[in-house]
């Protein structure tokens, strides 16, 4: 299948759903303003196999998130029950790929690992503003896939008291213990402070005294935390589990329907699928609209509205109506519009129109054109009462399922349809890939990209998840870097610029920092700067601080000046940026004492960057020491001033510079400063030119 076609048609489908009212439903309902959502959706989705492609894809993802093979199989069975659905799927090979993938996936990654990751993400998210942005970011990726909220401005603000963050105190405690353990041997300031840092710090990287000897341990810690920083799926996992298990059997068509449904209700149902409100409604499904009616907060007009709705509704559609009403009211109360909406004039929920709507199906022309998957033999008795009954039941089920699915969707957060919002400068030349493989090795393109070799955004989401796991598992940077480069390439050739892009670049930058691949880091940094300047959300401050440190490493004084001039006062207030600026000031004023103090207290992953020029600064400082101190200086003092964590490492450093120690007792080593000075000067030679790897100008 050509990718352009694929995307194009699904976009058409998208546009269709946004029309409030397909023509045939107008005919049937006799000019009723609200289109019967369920019907028109069914038509839309069954006429368009591409829509089903996406929906099908969504379904497999859903299975992937529900972590239950059992459920997945049930879904498949369900497809067979609805003959036309499975028929239309039969010519779609990727669906099989997905199902096998998700099965394989959970065999490979057992529950244990899952828990570890949850821990990591929980500690990560127990912190404050930055974390919440992070979750928001990931929420934004997904909510932007919803037709109702396609811009970032409208993505849900996660409630800071969301249950998953604080209910799990056991997990947090565990993690704190773990981190204090790891901090214990790292930190000479004491484990207590580092734990305190962890909970207080915006980004809960291990914030303890860093040292070369302990770098390995820190590395693992940082990688765990940094990798899971943006992973909402795992943050959600503990409390999402029951909800998923509850999820009814549903087919992919229902998702399409739900989308339409929400769209048709112009903002009415917007908020329901967002944020943390959903679980509560799910845990008490349909806990009585009638009791709610008596709620004192409700205006009279609303009560009337509910009564009218029930009156206009058939018995069959009652459950559906309840669902819809609940949706409408909860969204209104969430938006604090209970008293501002004119309930008297508001159109009744769609479920009220259910009976007249059935006539849609009695229009043979529409059906014949629309249902390729429907058997021709059953077509004759299409209008028979029995079949009508069955359809009605089916649609009711579907409506509920779709609602649940959609609310899961907001959290499970995998996009269904490629969105123009994701693409910067959308035009006809923008390609969309059709490749469904998760892994792809990087090859620098020498010609126009081939869509069959490019992975579309939903696949890339899965790829990223896979890569995160792979990195934790194998720690194989060659593989990861290669994969990330191809991932970035796919994003670039499809011009995808959204918060997912930011996430990818941030992750790769962090991994590159961790493995000291400054070339790749700088490429990511350059891109990130551009992405941030487009207003995409991310860890702007964190990476601004890295940028300053990188400039310090490359001794690019002019760019520091530029960056400094462009900085706003509030940016300078940020802890990480302030640290980086202090490092700059310490270097500029030759205050090595302050510099090495800052080195051991570097926030985030700044320490990894500083590692790159720490030896250079040590040599400069050593030069000063040699020039200033006479006749000799204790190694203890040198080690302390130059930020070594042990005298042993310091001795090693000195011997590497061919500096000999004075004959003395075993306890106290002394250096003859006058003799050492030429060596210190000679050591500076190799730092005269900075090796700038992969620097792009």
């Amino acid at each position, binding site marked *: 299948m050509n990718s352009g076609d694929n995307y194009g048609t699904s976009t058409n489908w998208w546009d269709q759903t946004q029309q409030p009212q397909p023509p045939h439903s107008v005919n049937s309902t006799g000019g009723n303003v609200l289109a019967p959502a369920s019907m028109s959706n069914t038509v839309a989705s069954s006429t368009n196999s591409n829509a089903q492609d996406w929906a099908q894809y969504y379904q497999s993802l859903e299975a992937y998130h529900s972590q239950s093979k059992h459920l997945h199989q049930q879904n498949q069975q369900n497809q067979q029950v609805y003959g036309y659905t499975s028929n239309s799927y039969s010519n779609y090979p990727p669906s099989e790929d997905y199902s096998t993938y998700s099965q394989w996936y959970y065999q490979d990654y057992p529950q244990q690992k899952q828990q570890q990751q949850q821990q990591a993400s929980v500690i990560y998210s127990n912190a404050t503003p930055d974390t919440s942005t992070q979750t928001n970011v990931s929420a934004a990726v997904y909510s932007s896939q919803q037709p109702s909220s396609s811009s970032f401005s409208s993505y849900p603000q996660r409630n800071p008291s969301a249950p998953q963050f604080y209910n799990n105190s056991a997990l947090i405690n565990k993690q704190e213990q773990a981190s204090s353990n790891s901090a214990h041997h790292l930190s000479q300031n004491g484990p207590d402070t580092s734990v305190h840092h962890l909970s207080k710090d915006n980004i809960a990287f291990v914030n303890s005294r860093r040292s070369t000897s302990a770098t390995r341990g820190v590395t693992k810690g940082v990688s765990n935390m940094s990798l899971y920083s943006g992973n909402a799926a795992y943050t959600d996992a503990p409390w999402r589990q029951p909800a998923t298990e509850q999820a009814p059997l549903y087919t992919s068509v229902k998702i399409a329907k739900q989308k339409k449904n929400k769209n048709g209700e112009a903002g009415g149902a917007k908020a329901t699928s967002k944020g943390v409100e959903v679980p509560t409604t799910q845990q008490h499904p349909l806990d009585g609209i009638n009791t709610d009616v008596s709620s004192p907060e409700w205006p009279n007009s609303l009560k009337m509205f509910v009564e009218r709705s029930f009156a206009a509704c058939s018995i069959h559609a009652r459950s559906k109506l309840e669902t819809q009403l609940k949706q409408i009211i909860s969204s209104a109360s969430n938006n604090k519009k209970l008293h501002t909406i004119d309930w008297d004039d508001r159109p009744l929920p769609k479920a009220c129109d259910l009976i007249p709507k059935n006539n849609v199906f009695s229009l043979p022309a529409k059906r014949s054109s629309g249902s390729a998957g429907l058997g021709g033999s059953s077509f004759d008795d299409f209008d028979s009462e029995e079949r009508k009954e069955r359809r009605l039941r089916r649609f009711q089920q579907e409506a509920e399922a779709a609602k649940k699915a959609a609310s899961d969707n907001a959290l499970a957060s995998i996009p269904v349809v490629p969105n123009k919002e994701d693409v910067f400068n959308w035009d006809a030349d923008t390609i969309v890939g059709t490749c469904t493989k998760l892994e792809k090795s990087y090859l620098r393109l020498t010609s126009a990209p081939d869509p069959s070799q490019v992975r579309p955004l939903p696949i890339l989401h899965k790829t990223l998840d896979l890569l995160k796991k792979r990195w934790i598992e194998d720690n194989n940077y060659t593989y990861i870097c290669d994969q990330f480069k191809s991932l970035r390439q796919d994003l670039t050739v499809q011009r995808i610029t959204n918060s997912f892009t930011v996430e990818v670049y941030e992750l790769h930058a962090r991994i590159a920092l961790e493995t000291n691949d400054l070339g790749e880091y700088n490429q990511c940094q350059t891109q990130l700067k551009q992405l941030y300047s487009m207003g995409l959300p991310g860890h702007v401050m964190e990476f601004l601080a890295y940028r300053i440190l990188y400039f310090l490493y490359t001794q690019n004084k002019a760019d520091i000046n530029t960056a400094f001039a462009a900085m706003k006062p509030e940016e300078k207030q940020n802890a990480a940026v302030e640290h980086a600026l202090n490092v700059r000031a310490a270097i500029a004023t030759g205050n090595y004492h302050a510099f090495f103090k800052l080195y051991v207290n570097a926030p985030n992953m700044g320490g990894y960057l500083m590692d790159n020029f720490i030896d250079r600064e040590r040599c400069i400082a050593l030069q000063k020491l040699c020039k*200033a*101190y006479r006749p000799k200086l204790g190694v203890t003092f040198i080690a302390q001033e130059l930020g070594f964590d042990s005298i042993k490492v310091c001795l090693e450093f000195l011997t590497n510079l061919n500096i000999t120690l004075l004959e003395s007792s075993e306890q106290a080593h002394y250096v003859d400063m006058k003799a050492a000075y030429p060596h210190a000067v000679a050591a500076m030679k190799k730092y005269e030119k900075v090796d700038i790897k992969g620097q792009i100008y």
Partner: protein
Amino acid sequence: MAGSTRLVKALYKFKMLKTTKNPEELAQIVPIASVYTVKVLDDIWKEDGNWDVLLEEKKRSLWDEMAILHFRASAAYRQSQFITAYRHQLDMYNAFLREFQNMSRWAVYALFAISKDLYDLARRADTQQSMVDSQANKVEEATRAINQGFSACMTDREPLLSKSRKWGTYHMANILFGLYLQFKAYNLCNSMIRAIKASELPSLDRFPMSDQVTFRFHRGTLAFRSEKYSIAKEDLLFALEHCHRDAYKNKTRILMHLTPIMMMEGKMPHSRLLRRYPRVRSIYGPLVKAVKSGDLQTFDKQLRAVEQQLVSLGLYMATEYVRKLVIRQLLYKVFLIEGRASRVPFSKFQAGFAVAGFPQMEIAEVECILADMIFSGYVKGYLAHDHGLAVLSKQMPFPRISTLHNNPSP
């Protein structure tokens, strides 16, 4: 219609100027609002009642085409349609550049004129455009075009130096500096300087003084940004000395950069200089005073007060280095209070810093500052860590800073 006779005449004039290679007159008539152009347009208007004749498409030579485009741009300019005017001017510029490849030194003056017009129109067009939408990027486009004009000058292969277009290089470079600095594209400035350095141009001092001064000012400020202060000092001093004596604003700009460099070298601006340049005084005056008295607290306070101004001019880092002098002065004060003793305990210096507003400074940091001072030669002597004191040199423990010959930048 065969077209306005007035226009035909004007085109003929352009053609004649090309064949006679008349630099002054061409440079005089190509500006967008030159007296000649205005007159031609007036005459055509009188003749026809409109300027439609300018829009008639006819097969012409490239030079004619250029001339027509010039009149079109000028006509649009007079109607304040800057976007249209800019489009025509850009086309005209490109047409001129193609002709320019086959011309020699005489045409560079016309190139200067139309480059300036192009930039000016681009700016006005952007202003006009930004009222409609945000797609205002014509200045960048114009910059690219002007950059082509620059390279057309620089890469001329005319063997006869007196006829070479290379004589236009520095003037074009100066126009480009102005544009690049507007975008804060410092790396483009630097690459331009590198390109000029790599090309075989006549030495800079053979160019007109105005070109020299402007170019060296820009080169100096760029070196300043990269904290290469000795290079910057040379260029800026030259610019200051050779700047036109009435160019008061330019001198102020030069002095803003030059003052911190000179201060780093221990040369404080004279009170007469500060009196003459109030802007310089408003920023550096209190700092100079603080340096002289070793008043670290006042210095830091004033530095914070003017930080925003200094940062926006890219002067902050340089001024920060001057702080070292203040510290030197402070240490000197301690030395004096200690009765010029050659052995001063670290704790005395620590007390000095405490008085200067750093009550929490550790001994280790005091030592670090002293070590840095000794390393950079501001203090002569050595530190005895085990005894906890600084042993200062018998003669000149605090040498005059202006006698230090090391690079002011650390």
